[in-house]
């Protein structure tokens, strides 16, 4: 194997390791995955600023088996893309999987979960956000009435100040008590 390719410089790798919850090996694996999505446009070596400039369109990322079935995939990519379009550079991509990795702390996870469910970006999870989430989750199988009922119940449970929407703190409070969240909010790559 004479043509050993330098995928990242040592510095880059160090930096990525510092910024994510990944080990060196995992970073390289993520890179491989990233390249496999759209091998045409992504070079093998990313020693310069390819990692932060070359983007892969959402349409391709969506096809990843890890995301393909996820009802929130569009929203997840939106969050992690720089411009909110859902197109990701390698760094964004890495960041995404770092957050979803098992090593990530729960505070970080909760923060991003809040961002994901806050569909209208108003820093609160309101009625519309919940209905959107429900629609995505159930493939619009619930009736409007049912969704309203669910919304009301959810507010009963989580809305402390009674303003009809969940702030981050309220969301955090609700999520922290959930036994499920930390076991399900993972994507393994």
């Amino acid at each position, binding site marked *: 194997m004479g043509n050993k390719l330098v995928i990242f410089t040592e*510095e880059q790798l*160090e*930096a*990525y390791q*510092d*910024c*994510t*919850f990944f*080990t*060196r*090996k995992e970073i390289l694996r993520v890179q491989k995955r990233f390249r496999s999505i759209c091998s045409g446009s992504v070079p093998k070596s990313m020693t310069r600023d390819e990692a*932060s400039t070359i983007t892969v369109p959402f349409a391709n990322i969506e096809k990843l*088996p*890890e995301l*393909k*079935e*996820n*009802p*929130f995939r569009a929203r997840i990519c939106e969050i*992690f893309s*720089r411009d909110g379009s859902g197109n990701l550079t390698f*760094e*964004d991509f*890495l*960041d995404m999987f*770092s957050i*979803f990795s098992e090593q990530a*702390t729960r505070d*970080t996870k909760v923060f991003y979960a809040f961002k994901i*469910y806050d569909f209208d970006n108003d820093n609160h999870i309101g009625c519309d956000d*919940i209905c959107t*989430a*429900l629609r995505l*989750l*159930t*493939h619009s*199988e*619930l009736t409007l009435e*049912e969704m309203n*009922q*669910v919304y009301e*119940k*959810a507010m*009963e*449970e*989580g809305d402390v100040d009674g303003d009809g929407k969940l702030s981050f703190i309220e969301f955090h409070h*609700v*999520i922290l*008590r*959930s*036994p*499920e*969240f*930390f*076991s*399900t*909010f*993972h*994507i*393994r790559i």
Partner: protein
Amino acid sequence: MQYQTYVSRISAKKTVVHSIRKKNRNVEPVSPQPSFDRLSVTFAGEDNNAKSPSKPQDTRFHVEPIPEQDVNENELPENEEDDDEYSASVSAIMSRSASVRKSGRKRRPSSPFSPDADQNGGIRRRSSVFTTSSAESPVSNVEENTAQEMIFHKMKIHKEVLSQIKYQPWPMRKKIRLVQTAKAYIRRHEGALQERLAQKKSTKDILEHFNIILINQWHKAKRELANLSNTMIPWEKRIKEIESHFGSVVASYFTFLRWLFWVNLVSAFALVIFVAVPEMLFANKKNSGERKELLDDEKSTSTNFATLWSFQGVLKYSPFFYGYYMSEEDNGEKRFWYRHPTAYFVTGLAVYIYSFVAILRKMAENSRQSKLSEKEDECIFSWKIFTAWDYMIGNAETAHNRTASIILGFKEVLLEEAEKNREDGRNWKMMALRSLAHFVVICLIVTSAYVVVQVVERSMEPGADKSWLRQSEQALVFTVIGSVYPMFFDAISFIERYHPRKALRMQLARIMVLNLLNLYSFILATFSQMHKMSERSLELKPKNTTLRSTILNTLTTTELPLGKSTEGGPTPECFQVPVDCSPTSSISPLGLATLLVANISLSANPSNDEITREAFHTLENSSWTQAYNLSTEVPFSEGNATGSSDDFSWADVDNREFWDTVGINTTEDQNVTGVNITAALFNYPLNRFNSTSVVEIDHPEANFSSPIPTDFRIETYSTEPSSSDPTTRVSESTEEGTTITLETSSRDALNGANRLECFQIRCKTPGIDESGDRYTTMTLNGMLSTSGGFTLAEPDAPEADMSTYTKTMSLKTRKELRGLCWETMFGQELVKLTVMDLLATVSSILMMDFFRALFVRVMNHCWCWDLEKRVPGYGDFKIAENILHLVNNQGQVWMGMFFSPLLPLINIVKLIVILYLRSWAVMTCNIPHEVVFKASRSNNFYLALLLTMLFLCVLPVSYAIVWMRPSWHCGPFSNYRHIHYLFTGTLKKIIPKAMHKVLDYIASPGIVIPLLMLLVLIIYYLISLTNALREANNDLK
């Protein structure tokens, strides 16, 4: 000046984050210095505050221009906004880490009083400012020092940034930029620092230098180690793959399996290292008795498949089973420091304790992780919205099922919410159906118990091991029940129409009951068999066998015309006379016959009274019973030399009772001087008799509910011949009345080698022969071999080990004996069950999953209906059954482990096979279950099942340890009356004599019952405390 702006921003931000008080203090114009200095000082001070006890002089460097230069030097091409961002980010990180420190580890001694500490910090900070301003003329040397320290501090900040950055919820680009900035700074300054250090040779600097390198290395090593440990977890990838396809429930089965694998690995490791290996290396094969070697005619079939299949032959005499291990005595003269029986016992115990601890620890860990999971329906709607989706799912089918289950879940909770308002939604039809289901289930369970009992009984019948089918019938029935009944239960639960989760629990509980019931009927049956074997092997124990056969022989061969003497007339007096085994002395003079009128005693081995009793039963049944129904007036002289009458009174008390149970009449004369002693069998060392005419009389132990307590005495009766010729002297004394003295024989003399004794039973029947001679003597010649005496001063002291004497026995007896090692039998049964179960699992996976899937896939093209969607369809992974299968299997392993030390090793292999096969089958031929339910809670449920199982499986083992008498011819405890005596005996040896009473008292009901009461009270108290706390918790909510 840019740096100053960062710093000022940082400090400003920090103070906002921290507390208003601090902010006030910072802004207060107390310092005479220019504002930027003050701010920078504050920053440094803050840093001190966060890191370590502050050093006031540290702050001085801020008046110097060095930092600015440095920062300017490594300035990255960034614009103003980035700088802003950077400083803000740094401050956020710092505040975070500072707050983490405060709340977390108590590094600073003052941290418990955090407000005070802050205040102190503030004051200190302020004072430091003053010192800075007042000491305005620093010496250059000091300056340099302080400059270095300043760099240190900033580097610390930057390092903090580096280590904390990954926890920040910022976009990647920002993080990378931050990291680059921080790193550049560190690199530069580390270089500078090192250079400076290189110039200065003071020890402290060298130390610092060294420290830097060390820390770097340490971080690198830590990272590598983390990488390594991640890759070291076995089957992680496989399990994760399954998890991504089948959701977390199915994966939980595999993680549970893996955890069990670890537990078994540790157990097997301990058992192999401490039990099996030393035994194989150091045991002395010569003295092994029936333990290690095959008989010659067994050798031919010992490696046949049929033999190996039932774990007979070579495998039976391998370290797999209890019978292979040697007892302590067998190590012979060169007592090795390693005591095998002790090791066996202690390791077995330790492994059980380890199993308990491992389960409890795992449970505690799980419940810590899901501490609040018990409040399941607290925020059910929010959770369903936000956490219902399992992000792991990457499989379309699983995703579809998950979506379906989420929809179902929502509908369910909405329904339940509606149900809450109107309470009675039950109708009688459903009720009837459900009670019918319960009834059917109970019937099923009862039939299964019946079948198991029948099978076990059948297996104990003679000829049970005639054919292969009969041999493994038991295991087969178990397996069939284990695999067929759950299907019935499944069908029944379909009728019941419970909520799926409830249905699962019902299913789990029912299968568990089924398993336990089967297991327990198996245990009971096996134990009764074990008891039988134990009794039978005791019958074959050397001493008693020979005794019995001798008596029978003598009685049948010698024809004693005692028939008429039984009726009413004068009773014949019979007694046993020891004779020298040399042929000449077997015809003994009459004088000896009369000698031992008084020395009639009973030989009752204290440990197996039944046998002796049986021996007497035989006597009774024979026509000679009355011949032994003797009444000998023993004339005791009251004031005789050593107070014999007092000491002799025992014979009266307990012999009488014994005779009553045997059914031989004792005479009514109960006074002390005239004692009626019946029967005449006794053991004594021949040599002693010869030399000093000592006759030992074995005292029957107080075991047969006689009032004689505790101490078993061995008394030696010696006639007191003062003359040189004992025979004549004694014969004289017989006529006048024998003087009897008692002396205690030394224990060691008895506790030894096999002895052969010859004796004669002589009966004199007065009245039959009225002619000149007063006594007609009939002689029965016999031989009595005793092997060792019994010197049970204490019940838990080891007896003489007789297992090596089996070689002297006939081949037939030996063969029978070899089959009577009940411990090995128990181990064999469980090993058989385990292996059989593995085969059944493998075949059921192949049949139910693989071939079915193959059939469905291939035949679907040419079939009249859709095979994939309708009957038979693909198999799904039955989580409940599989989990219970594991639990059940583990229970069997725990039960058999004590008597088959290498069973965990077999189980490891089994678990690995199951893991690979299952995971392969799941991935290739199963489809995800329709209801994907949660895994998080049920995990502890599995462990609770396992704990119950462990507890129930330890019970029979502890029963065997405490109550059963270990086989005398095999295993490490062959010379103990109960296995646990090894423990108590050793304990008593260690503890000084004076403490024995205390120990006894502690172990007596007088202490144990109050202790139990106390424990119950404590538990009650704790439960009520928990309830109170829970209530308080609810109130607070």
